[in-house]
């Protein structure tokens, strides 16, 4: 009996460690990626709003050539902005269009994040379930053995 229990226990533990925990880690990583995207777009939105507010027509920036070597760059006309809409496409927008697009994008990202959060929660629940099962298996035999030993 005990050996059977041990086997079951081992199987449960293995299941948790090998399937559930990596799943959890992966889900969290995916969610973090979406978080990053969300942050990028919100930053962009804020910048465009700032530009609009200050009516900036041209600006100077430093462009990273790689390995943190910067070159000065000048943007003569800031009215046109090219935004990455995914799949390698960049669309030319005016500021207002850009802002509209960004808000749409942000909503989509929010929905994705919610989904990932739900997935993560379900995985965590599964882990808890299995742990409870393990605990039960451990406790019951303990009680029995204890009774057995007590004369």
């Amino acid at each position, binding site marked *: 009996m005990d050996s059977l229990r041990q086997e079951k226990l081992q199987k449960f533990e293995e299941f948790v460690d090998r399937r559930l925990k990596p799943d959890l880690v992966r889900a969290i990583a995916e969610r973090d990626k979406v978080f990053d995207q969300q942050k990028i777009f919100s930053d962009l939105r804020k910048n465009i709003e700032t530009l609009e507010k200050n009516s900036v027509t041209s600006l100077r920036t430093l462009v990273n050539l790689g*390995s943190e*070597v910067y070159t000065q*760059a000048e943007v003569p006309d800031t009215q046109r902005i*090219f935004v990455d809409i995914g799949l390698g496409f960049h669309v030319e927008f005016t500021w207002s269009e850009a802002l509209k697009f960004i808000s749409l994008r942000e909503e989509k990202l929010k929905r994705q994040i919610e989904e990932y959060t739900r997935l993560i929660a379900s995985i965590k629940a599964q882990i808890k379930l299995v742990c409870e099962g393990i605990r039960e298996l451990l406790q019951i035999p303990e009680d029995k053995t204890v009774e057995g030993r007590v004369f």
Partner: protein
Amino acid sequence: MGKPEVKGTVTSLSSMFPPEEVQKAAKMVEEKLSEKQNEMNQLKEFIADNTSLVNLVQKLPDELHHDIMVPFGKAAFFPGGLIHTNEFLVLLGESYYADRTAKQTVEILKRRGKSLMSKVDALKAEMQDLKAEASFFDSTTSEVAEDLVEIKEYEEDNSTERVFQSGPAELESPTLAEADNKMDSKLGASKDDEYARLMSRLDELEKEELAAEDDGENDEDEDEDANATETDGDENELTEAAFQWKKDEGYSSRDHGQRYSECTGLTAEPVTQGEMSHGRIIHQDSKMLNPSINASVPSEKKPVQTSKSEFDSSKAFTGSIVEHTENLEKKIPGQNTTSSESSGSKPSKPVSRFKMQRK
């Protein structure tokens, strides 16, 4: 061969080096190796990026103005252009920047490239070491798979260890060991512990030497030959010699050490054929041993000086040192048959080759 006094145990290598453990160790080494490989790849990428950047920085000053798409954050671009194409802002680290011209920037980048290369070299050296480890584990695995058996024989008298590994079910004749064992037993049981320690060290050194000398033998033998492999010296020692070299290291070194320790006195080293191998090992060891032993030797001129106080199966040198002096001839015949045979033959041989080798 099988003397009533000789007791022994046979342990398979697989029990000494459980295959699972060996495999685990091999896996771990492999993992480390792959980690290092990844690091190496990353470093190589950096180096490639650096070189391409050097080219770019050299090309930019060719024009006053370059039309580019200026990134704005990670997801947007502005059409614009590069200006002041000869001025570069370089990050020196720790939030320190420097305005440099193209030439100066190229120099900075080249220096960076050099440091990256040196890192790559260091990493390569580490990987070499790991590979050596991995090959050792692999060979151990294969040996274990072959069911090599470690055979230890103990002599009651001196509690000297003779350990030698035999091929699958092959019993390496304890010939070589026997001779030594016999001598050990004859010569005497107790030696100073210090002596024993010296001998054990000698044995290990001998083993290493033997491994280096012996092309045919596996290096593992040495490793696995924790215990001196001593085989009873029989007349067949020669046959065993080749195979047992490594094994015999332990005792051979011992014997030799002992003999050599006597130095002056040891002329007729019982150089059994088997011991030839030892001789090689020994002559190096003897050199090393001699200074240390000489110190102790004078104090113990007795021919029989075997430190069998400790029977340490883990050491090649079991701790008993057999010193053969002129007295050997007397003792040898008296003590053990086989050993006497072998030992007897030794004195008859010309001054041991060890001596010659030694000198």
